[in-house]
């Protein structure tokens, strides 16, 4: 029983971080209909920015978080301005390719500055562990759940309630028509990218706390795909549910079945669910009228 609880707790915390990482995809997709393959590298850059602020600049961790967030937001805006904007109106898949190129630039850039050696994590989340009913869970993971939940709820509200949220969705539907509404597609895009980069930094910082700062963080971007799709590409609540499902699924499979099956189980479940719900659990159906 304590094993089960143990796995559940870890599954939940992994799910929270997965959801947070997935949020970046969703933000960008929602506004720009682009899947950002560089999202994992945003995570990487964010983690290194935070690391640099703490270790190289010697800042207090709270300041370092601010520096990291500011850096990411700037990066997001710059990327939008110089890489994505010229691609407005192009085929989605060409845009995807640009983000793949971008990931290469970001990854190489990080290596240029920090080399290839993994770095120790600057510990800032509470150390120690929460023990209950025979299960132990580090406080840092508990904190991760809290932070992820707060960020996700904020964004859910943003999209359904605010004018800017609606504008973002309008742009996603029809950029030209949005322009004729005076909605600056550029500004919306810049906002989406900046926000996505910021969530990536938060995700990167949390992740770095759990697994260290190394080039490997970028790989996280791929693990997140099943989560994004399972929840529905454009649904913020979907990322939460998707994250938790996948997080738990991986833990249980690893714990009860093993044999490396946990690597494919998310994908198998993903396909099965998609066959029943082609737009994920919460994704919006594409409207096809003739």
């Amino acid at each position: 029983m304590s094993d089960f609880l143990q796995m559940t707790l870890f599954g939940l915390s992994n799910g929270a971080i997965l959801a947070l990482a997935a949020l970046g995809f969703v933000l960008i997709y929602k506004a720009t209909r682009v899947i950002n393959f560089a999202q994992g590298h945003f995570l990487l850059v964010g983690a290194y920015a935070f690391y640099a602020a703490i270790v190289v600049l010697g800042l207090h961790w709270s300041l370092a978080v601010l520096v990291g967030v500011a850096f990411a937001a700037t990066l997001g805006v710059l990327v939008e301005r110089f890489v994505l904007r010229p691609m407005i109106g192009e085929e989605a898949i060409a845009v995807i390719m640009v983000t793949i190129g971008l990931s290469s630039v970001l990854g190489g850039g990080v290596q240029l500055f920090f080399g290839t050696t993994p770095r120790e994590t600057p510990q800032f989340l509470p150390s120690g562990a929460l023990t209950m009913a025979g299960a132990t869970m580090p406080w840092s993971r508990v904190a991760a759940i809290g932070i992820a939940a707060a960020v996700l709820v904020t964004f859910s509200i943003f999209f359904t309630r605010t004018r800017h949220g609606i504008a973002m969705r309008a742009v996603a539907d029809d950029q030209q028509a949005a322009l004729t509404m005076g909605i600056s597609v550029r500004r919306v895009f810049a906002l989406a990218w900046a926000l996505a980069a910021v969530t990536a930094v938060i995700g990167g910082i949390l992740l770095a706390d759990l697994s260290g700062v190394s080039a490997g963080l970028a790989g996280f971007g791929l693990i997140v795909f099943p989560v994004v799709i399972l929840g529905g590409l454009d649904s913020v609540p979907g990322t939460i549910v998707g994250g938790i499902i996948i997080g738990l699924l991986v833990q249980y499979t690893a714990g009860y079945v093993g044999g490396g099956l946990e690597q494919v189980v998310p994908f198998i479940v993903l396909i099965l669910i998609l066959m029943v719900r082609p737009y994920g659990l919460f994704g919006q159906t594409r409207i096809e009228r003739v």
Partner: protein
Amino acid sequence: ACGGPGAEEGDGDGPIPIGVISDLSGATADVGTPYSEGIRGYAEWLNEQGGIDGRELDLNLNDYAYDVARAEQLYSQYVNEGVVAVQGWGTGDTEALRQKVAQDELPFMSASYAETLVDPEESPYNFVVAATYSDQMRVALDWVASDSGGDGSVAVFHHDSPFGTAPVGDGEAYIEDNDLGLGYDSYAMPEGATDYVAQLNRAESAGAEYVVVQNVSSPAAMLATNIAQQNLDMTVVCLNWCADEQFIDLAGDAAEGHIMVQPFSPPSDPVEGHSEPADYLESQGESLEDKGLHYVQGWYTMHVMAEGIRHTIDSGQEVTGSNLRDALRSMDPVNTGEVTVPISFDADSHRGMEGTGIYQVDDGEMTTVERGVTP
């Protein structure tokens, strides 16, 4: 060799061309970089010393980003440039090039220590400079057997790849053949995981007290951290690619007390053989402590190759791939100043050594438990 047009053999008195395929930006760049720097450092140091019999080593060193197709391209380029030997890196590229190097008669050393490479029947031009993964596993199991008093249980946590699984089967066979009486299970470590708690739980339920890790440092460190956080009573035994300073740095306190099986002695345990790389690095304004043991590993791998070349020249032969192979097989064991046990090859076996060191993490340092242990 089938060098094709424009190929010039490394004969005469000119520099001796050697191709190096390194991972400097790919999936294993964290350890690939210092290893590659060690190779380069040795060559530069040797050339400063006047080379081999007045002839310099001309390294052509390139990054292949852990991409097999790129390795093939580079290899083909090296063949074209008339190299006499190649230093490779990973399991994938070493496997992919095995036939080609045999056909082109180019001795090939790599950092892939799989047991399949030591048999000259199968891989006539591959030379394994360290104790194979399987030998390291055997040493680790011997250690576990004695540490536990013969009734311990081992969980092997391995990378999910040919590299990771290379010693798994041999380990199991070894326990049986030698009646070590150890429990034995294996667990794949999925790429990109943020914890191994579920796998550890399973291992714990199976009664494992020892975790042998065949993986690189970052995941191994995460595993150690998980063990510490979960207050599990398990000892980690790292083989080769996680038996290094990075593991200690990353895992911090969680690394304390764990065991490492590592054929190359780390800078923190100075031996005579460390002085050459250390002095050289100092002259470059760097230090061996910073570079770590994989630098040493690269350095002495290149050293073995250079010794082979020296032997070829000394015996009045032209420096060609096949002559170099013969030299490597026939020369005296290479002494590495106690960095490793002496390294030697012969026509029946390209297993450079069997002995390896055992270290324990103590106060953030690798401290020597024993050197030159053989299974």
